[in-house]
């Protein structure tokens, strides 16, 4: 649930993510997400092409920090890329774009058998099946577990004692 935040652009400096920068992204993505476990690589699903366009359609605010980060990482040796992205706040955007774009790929979703967050109506019956299976028996047999303050009203004390003895 914890969000990883990155520095985002103010949109005041438009930046071009043309072929040169896409080539850098391609090199980085090959290092960050290679193919494995019957899943394609980030480059195979087009992280430097159509997927990047989709990412920037959803998150145009990422274009500027991404462009600067790509410039910064252009000459970084392959074995140092991951460490820099993880440790330098200005470069975290590369990880977000590569992983975020990769996980927007239908090819990847299909390989994961992931139907996005498709709706499925709630079926509360399964709670009652768990109760019927006895999973709450011990809890209910133990009775109340809250503490009564000394100024609890008399009827609350009586209700507590009654529940404890039931």
């Amino acid at each position, binding site marked *: 649930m914890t969000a990883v935040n990155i520095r985002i652009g103010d949109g005041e400096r438009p930046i071009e993510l043309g072929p040169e920068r896409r080539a850098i992204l391609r090199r980085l993505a090959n290092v960050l997400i290679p193919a494995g476990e019957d899943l394609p690589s980030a480059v195979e699903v087009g992280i430097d092409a159509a997927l990047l366009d989709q990412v920037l359609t959803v998150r145009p605010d990422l274009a500027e920090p991404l462009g600067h980060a790509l410039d910064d990482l252009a000459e970084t040796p392959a074995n140092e890329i991951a460490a820099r992205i993880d440790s330098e706040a200005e470069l975290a955007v590369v*990880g977000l774009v590569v992983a975020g774009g990769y996980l927007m790929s239908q090819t990847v979703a299909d390989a994961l058998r992931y139907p*996005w967050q498709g709706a499925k109506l709630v079926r509360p019956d399964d709670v009652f099946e768990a109760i019927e299976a006895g999973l709450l028996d011990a809890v209910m047999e133990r009775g109340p577990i809250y503490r009564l303050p000394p100024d609890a009203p008399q009827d609350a004390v009586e209700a507590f004692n009654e529940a404890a003895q039931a």
Partner: protein
Amino acid sequence: MTEHIDALIVGAGPAGAVTARELHDAGISVVCLEQGDWPDYSLARSGYPDFELGARRHWNWDPNQRRGAGDYAIDDGESDVTALMYSGVGGSTVLYSGHWERFLPSDFRTRTLDEVGDDWPMSYWNLAPFYDEIESAFVVSGLDGNTAFPEAAPLELPPVPLNRVGRLGAEGLAAKGWHWWPGMNAIATRSVGEMHACGQRTACPFGCPTGAKGSADRTHWRALVRDGVDLRIRSTVEQVVVDAHGRASGVVYVDADGTRHRLSADVVILAANAIGTPRILLNSADGAGIANSTDLVGRRLMMHPFGNAIGIFDEDLESWRGPMGQYLHSLEFYETDRERGFVRGAKWNLLPSGAPLSMMLPGTWGTEPVWGEDFTRLLRERFGRSMIWGVICEDLPDADNRVVLDDRSPQTDGIPGVRIEYRTSPNTLAMMDWHLARVEELLQGMGAKKIIKNPNLRGTGWHLMGTAVMGEDASSSVVDPWGEAHDVENLFVFDGSSFPTSSGVNPTATIAAVALRNARHLVERRAAIRRSA
């Protein structure tokens, strides 16, 4: 020309919504000023490939990152925890996960029972009727009879399902003989009124696309506006105006066009959360501050240090699906046992792990490197096969944990941003370690093949409380037990700022219940209000 109305509410979150409903229904004219906008649910994209990337922008919990309408700068460089909130209609219920928890009886008596914190000027039983009443309004679902609480009014909606994750968690707790109970959530489990049945899209904290989560914009404000309540969005209150008799007489606010207005009212009710409310109080009187003879405004900030333990299993749990509301909770170790090395306790709740991006970015799921060949391996290992046990620790009030105006920050509509200073106490740190060790023990018993413990996560300050404390004694509190400022007649604080202690559970239920109690009391004594000259 200065407008005049009966009651002016600042903030359209849950406290403001509950208050507006109560006052309006009593025939009191109400204006609510909300500095943000209505949530734009066209940006709630769960169910689409761009869900997670978009959510990190539009539904980001951190206003410094989201930068939406009404957001102001919060410098958290001197805080162990980042303050999270939503500025807009519905307030932070727009982003909460809907976990609905009453405070426990002991939470109102920490001084009496454990010699720490302060007792509340009300008991659980004083508040219980208001909890009972408010729960249907927020479409709360759950199972009656929880043994961790006194008996309560029956809930109208059945609990969210357990699914595979919850069933496994319930079996694990039952095997240990530890308390658990199906989750209580402000999530509609069947369509009721204008609310729809939950679609289990794990989107609760990222803009519910279904209209199932009980956020105040949906449960209250749509109907309130239809009923004629004057809700003014993008209206930022600069300061509360105090007349020559020392009574609150209205506010000065700035609208979306940057035009400054003065709005006169018989009473002013602040419900802008425990960061926003002290911000307004401290900025009033042209920055000299009001209601602060005790120097307690902004102090005693409590934020609930939060940690989690993630369990990864071999089996497919379909854990990308489900409500992000809690499947179940455990209060087995909630009450004080001094032999553990700390006082007070924590609540555990079980969640599905959700969509994949959240588990594949560095720093969110432990310290294991994610890039290179590890990426696809970890994705296969985690996705659909993991669960998250959240641990909410009670933090006790400390005057040094505080909110102050930050004159160095960029001003929003003429008001400075804030700086928060917050350090996690040794008691809370010990509590977190102990509880995560128990959760680890639980997960081991459940057969988890890998356990990731994340203590004291930084970006988790959803629960903001304590910065305008209530009490009977005007020398040691900011507002009285009904929310009225000791120093400024007709000025009220109805949000979580007034809480003397924080409990170890989610606070929205109590924020709403306290607001209802206060609002009803205000209606009852309206004839006694001495209007500003």
